[in-house]
């Protein structure tokens, strides 16, 4: 584990939440400092995506306890769009398709809303086109994706690249990447990971949800956490991921018992 010196960006204390009346998150404590990379692993259905959506402010998820401070603000008091403007970014495990809305138009509105709110000059369609093309190059994406409807008919991997493109545009303070690696082919994984790494800075931080070590070979985590049954049941350094890959999750339950 590396030394923690950056300022605290995200501080989650005893967070619990329900969806459709079912308790999914059961008391999560989680702290992220500037400059850090955290990986969250854990079995299917353990609550990783739920955690990400609660942090991003999905209206279907009801927070039943706990507190979250993000960059000095009470995150849970803010509506989802304000959280995004404040620098919280979620890369979705399953990005939503929006037929009929051109990707370029969507990306520009997101950019102008979020970056405009931070004092960056708003870009007209032509200026934005120049700007977004640089970011496309970073992710080796075909400019044709700008003209297509948002995520509509995109392959699994293409959707994930489009998520990271949005991360590159919105320059978040904290990016929560939910299984960005699943669906990416071997080359795409390298390209996307390289893209994410190039966005790292001392003032921001990344939380990765993944099931596999391969992403962590490219984006090396400072901490690895294991989620199980709606709790973070174990935390370790990057070597924990290798151990999990070799041994699975069973032993953690036994160890904890």
């Amino acid at each position, binding site marked *: 584990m590396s030394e923690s010196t950056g300022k605290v960006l995200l501080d989650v204390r005893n967070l619990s939440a329900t969806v459709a009346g079912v308790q999914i998150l059961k008391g999560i404590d989680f702290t992220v400092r500037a400059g850090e990379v955290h990986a969250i692993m854990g079995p299917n259905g353990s609550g990783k995506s739920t955690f990400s*959506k609660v942090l*991003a*402010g*999905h*209206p*279907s998820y009801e927070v039943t306890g706990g507190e979250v401070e993000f960059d000095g603000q009470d995150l849970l008091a803010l*509506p*989802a*769009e304000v*959280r*995004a*403007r404040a620098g919280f*970014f*979620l890369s*979705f495990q399953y*990005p*939503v398709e*929006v*037929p*009929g*809305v*051109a990707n370029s*138009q*969507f990306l520009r*509105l*997101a950019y102008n*809303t*979020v970056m405009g*709110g931070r004092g960056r000059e708003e870009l007209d369609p032509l200026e934005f086109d120049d700007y977004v093309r640089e970011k496309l190059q970073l992710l080796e994406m075909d400019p044709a994706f700008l003209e297509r*409807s948002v995520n509509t008919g995109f392959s699994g991997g293409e959707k994930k690249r489009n998520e990271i493109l*949005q991360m590159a545009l*919105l320059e978040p303070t904290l990016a929560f990447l939910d299984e960005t690696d699943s669906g990416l082919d071997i080359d795409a994984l390298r390209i996307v990971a390289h893209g994410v790494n190039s966005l790292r800075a001392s003032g921001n931080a990344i939380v990765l949800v993944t099931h596999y070590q391969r992403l962590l070979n490219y984006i090396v985590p400072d901490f690895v956490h294991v989620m199980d049954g709606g709790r973070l049941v174990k935390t370790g350094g990057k070597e924990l991921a290798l151990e999990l890959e070799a041994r699975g999750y069973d032993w953690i339950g036994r160890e904890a018992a």
Partner: protein
Amino acid sequence: MSAVLQNLIDQPYKHGFVTDIESDVVPKGLNESVIRSISARKNEPEWLLEFRLTAYRHWLTMTEPTWPNVTYPPIDFQDISYYSAPKPKKKLASMDEVDPELLRTFEKLGVPMHEQAALAGVAVDVIFDSVSVTTTYKKKLADVGVIFCSFSEAVHEHPELIRKYLGSVVPAGDNFYAALNSAVFTDGSFCFIPKGVKCPMELSTYFRINTQESGQFERTLIVAEEGASVSYLEGCTAPQFDTNQLHAAVVELVALDRASIKYSTVQNWYAGDENGVGGIYNFVTKRGLCQGVDSKISWTQVETGSAITWKYPSCVLLGDNSVGEFYSVALTNHLQQADTGTKMVHIGKNTRSTIISKGISAGRSNNSYRGLVKIAASAHGARNFSQCDSMLIGDRCSASTFPYIQVQNNGAKVEHEATTSKIGEDQLFYFASRGIDPEEAVSMIINGFVKDVFTQLPMEFAVEAGRLLGLKLEGSVG
């Protein structure tokens, strides 16, 4: 989230006010003497009175259609006043002479008439209640031989044209409401584009219903002779009050050889309040006849108002190689009901038709597409493409599609596609996670949804229509 969506769609009607102009109203009720009285007030020739009376006698034998997917209390046709006209002090020569009260009304609507007419280069035939108050740009049109005037004026100045074409596309006894209109219509517009003339400007009419409880029975006739072309715009708003108003207009279009008529509508009549009280009953018969070879008729409509919309702008493709088009956006909210669509009747060889229909339902509204594509045995090589898409906003509205396809010619090609989508919580959350608030998200999704229709509208109308959809779906986010 449903609270958010609810707020988005709960926008009060912004055009609700009643203009206080002295009206000349015929007592309620319908019988032959009322019809004679309407005809006499308008100083009509005998043949037109006969047309009315024949229609009336036919109407008496007919019953209201019950097949549309809409419900409303029975209409008492004897409880309606069939004629209402603002009393102009004298014949008006220019906009300056128009009743200032009337001008203020247009200003409230955001339609500064004189300016708009001048700036946009649009000739506007102002229909206020049932009588044309003034007509502008007439001279410029007259120079190229285009006739654009009120229907009553045309009856007196161009009786031979009216006699020839009135009822030629929609016969007096065509359907219950067309028969009613034929019996009691008060005024409307007439437009005639002579042989080879491309109309130099877009023709526009603003309809407005004003007098409470007076039915509106407009009559529009547009004739494009050989090689002529015209683009016609119709837009409507109405003041807010509680009693339902019946509107039964008839629009007839005739396109001769190689002629083309483009007819665009933006409709925003009072839709009733969020509990379904009040609002216009909009029972309209619109039909175009592609009589000549290579002729073309294109309908574009953006329907956002009325408590009930019952309307099927249609094309009869008689001439070989003629083309019919129907582009429609119908938005319903609260308790609005719309049963709208088109009929494409292919008779000539190689006739082609395109139908693009986009229904948007919000609130507790009910939005149906009903369309008929009929290919007659004679229509060798006929082709049709239909695309009918529905968009639902919230969980309490509904959308239905009723496509009827009748093909009597084996070589014809008919394609029908339909989709239903929903602006869901996850879509709005996706936008929100990128900093975009739900209002902007809905507007962006809706704009994307209607794009294929809006590109068919004349530019300045597209802007107006976009504003209207925004108005209907915007609101404070709670």
